């Protein structure tokens, strides 16, 4: 038998989980110590164990929220539906939230999908590209008349997610060292920023006006334009003051990498 055909058959037995595949067993030499099914089973079992470990590692809170049985059923389902096309195991688990969104079994469970999206975001932040953060002192180098035209570049790890309300509380409870009660479902959405602070993923909730401001800033809007948008949305607090609070946070959290002046249009 040609090598290509042997590899196809062997792979198929591993993927289908069939350590008793007669065609493959016929190709396997007898062993003095063990039966061939047991030996082929080493590969069949290792495949599932290994892929499960990748998912386990990246979704620890999801396991807590679902409980072991439901989590393992999800993992089994995902592995069966998604043989890996990744050369690097790092990205095998990435599509889990998308799989759930498209699965009849999971798509209505927004709370669970929200937590999966948060955990994927944290994993992505962990090894996102590096960039040197800027400090707030750099703002002092710009003349006051230029401030309306300031634009900001952000750390490549920064992502903003809209998740079901309560997702952050669920994550905090599920990953706490203490045994904490998982909060009950809440209504609505919450917005979250995820990024990497030095080496560790970080996250925090964003108020509606900061969500708007940060989204605009990421999209390249100037400081002046962002002020106007926030003023329009937020009548209770003067926009410049609120924007100043945001800027202090963004710089102190290492989110901003470059400040520049937009060309006059």
């Amino acid at each position: 038998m040609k090598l290509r055909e042997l590899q196809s058959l062997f792979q198929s037995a591993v993927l289908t989980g069939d350590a008793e595949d007669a065609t493959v067993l016929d190709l396997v030499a007898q062993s003095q110590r063990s039966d061939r099914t047991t030996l082929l089973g080493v590969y069949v079992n290792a495949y599932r164990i290994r892929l499960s470990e990748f998912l386990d590692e990246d979704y620890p809170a999801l396991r807590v929220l679902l409980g072991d049985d439901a989590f393992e059923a999800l993992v089994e389902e995902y592995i069966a539906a998604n043989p890996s096309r990744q050369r690097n195991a790092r990205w095998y688990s990435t599509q889990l939230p998308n799989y759930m969104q498209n699965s009849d079994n999971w798509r209505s469970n927004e709370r669970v999908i929200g937590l999966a999206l948060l955990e994927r975001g944290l994993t992505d932040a962990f090894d996102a590209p590096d960039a040197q953060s800027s400090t707030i002192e750099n703002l002092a180098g710009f003349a006051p008349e230029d401030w309306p035209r300031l634009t900001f570049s952000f750390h490549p790890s920064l992502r903003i997610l809209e998740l079901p309300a309560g997702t952050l509380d669920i994550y905090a409870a599920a990953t706490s060292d203490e045994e904490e009660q998982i909060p009950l479902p809440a209504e609505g959405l919450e917005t979250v920023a995820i990024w990497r602070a030095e080496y560790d993923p970080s996250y925090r909730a964003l108020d509606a006006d900061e969500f708007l401001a940060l989204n605009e800033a990421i999209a390249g809007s100037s400081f002046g334009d962002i002020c106007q948008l926030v003023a329009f949305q937020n009548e209770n607090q003067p926009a410049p003051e609120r924007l100043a609070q945001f800027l202090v946070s963004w710089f102190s959290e290492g989110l901003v990498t470059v400040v520049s002046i937009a060309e006059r249009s």
Partner: protein
Amino acid sequence: MEPLPRLGYGLGLRPVYYDEILSTRPAVDWFEIISENYMIPGGRPLAMLERIRADYPIVMHGVSMSLASTDPLDMDYLNALKDLADRVEPAWVSDHVAWTGVHGLNLHDLLPIPHTREALDHIVERIARVQDFLKRRLVVENASTYVSFTGSEMDEWEFVTQMAQKADCMLLLDVNNVFVSGFNHGFDAKRYIDSVPVDRVAQFHMAGHTNNETHRIDTHDQPVCEEVWSLYEQARRRFGNVSAMIERDDNFPPFDELLGELQRMRDIDAAIAAQAPRSAA
């Protein structure tokens, strides 16, 4: 191509030990990384590697080259590997006599091949192409296997010997894998060691495995067992002072335990050296 350096006694670099390595600068001669763990955009793993690289030689050991696969070589993978090699400047790059998948899939395992002339020609041609692409001599490791194939036309040691000679690559002799495969397939591990050409072996791996009585599995989660230490001594007598290291990938012990295993290597080697006939002054 330049001969590969003799690096001494090394350890697999694993994240659980980053802090200890950086704070204590242990007496380890070199570290081996799993290449794929650093083929990522950025963050802690690459930052730690850079700091450790400043003080120690590094070797890159991959698990996804899939040298024996009948799928086309994955050039995206090889480009990423080359980028990492350009960044790390490793003493060498290694991977396995194995395939990891076909039809564009990856089973994330080191899968076995029949030792046939067809498989030999196939892997030789691919190693040669990878060497041309990376512009460096590849070091290729014997994998642990749990099945062998009725269609094999030669013993594994004959296969790897011919592979190394025809592809002009070097060999990473995993002493534990020789033992594990020998146990599982009923071949004589000592004969394997004695059959591999001395001038082709650039590195030893040592590791622990799981004994399931009817078969053994290469789990890297145990200390090196006595039978493998005995094979190590035999290998050392045959291959001389090639670079050697301990792999540990699970059930991580305190770092000192791994240093203890390295010391045992050094002690064995010192005892062998003491027995060697002294040349006339």
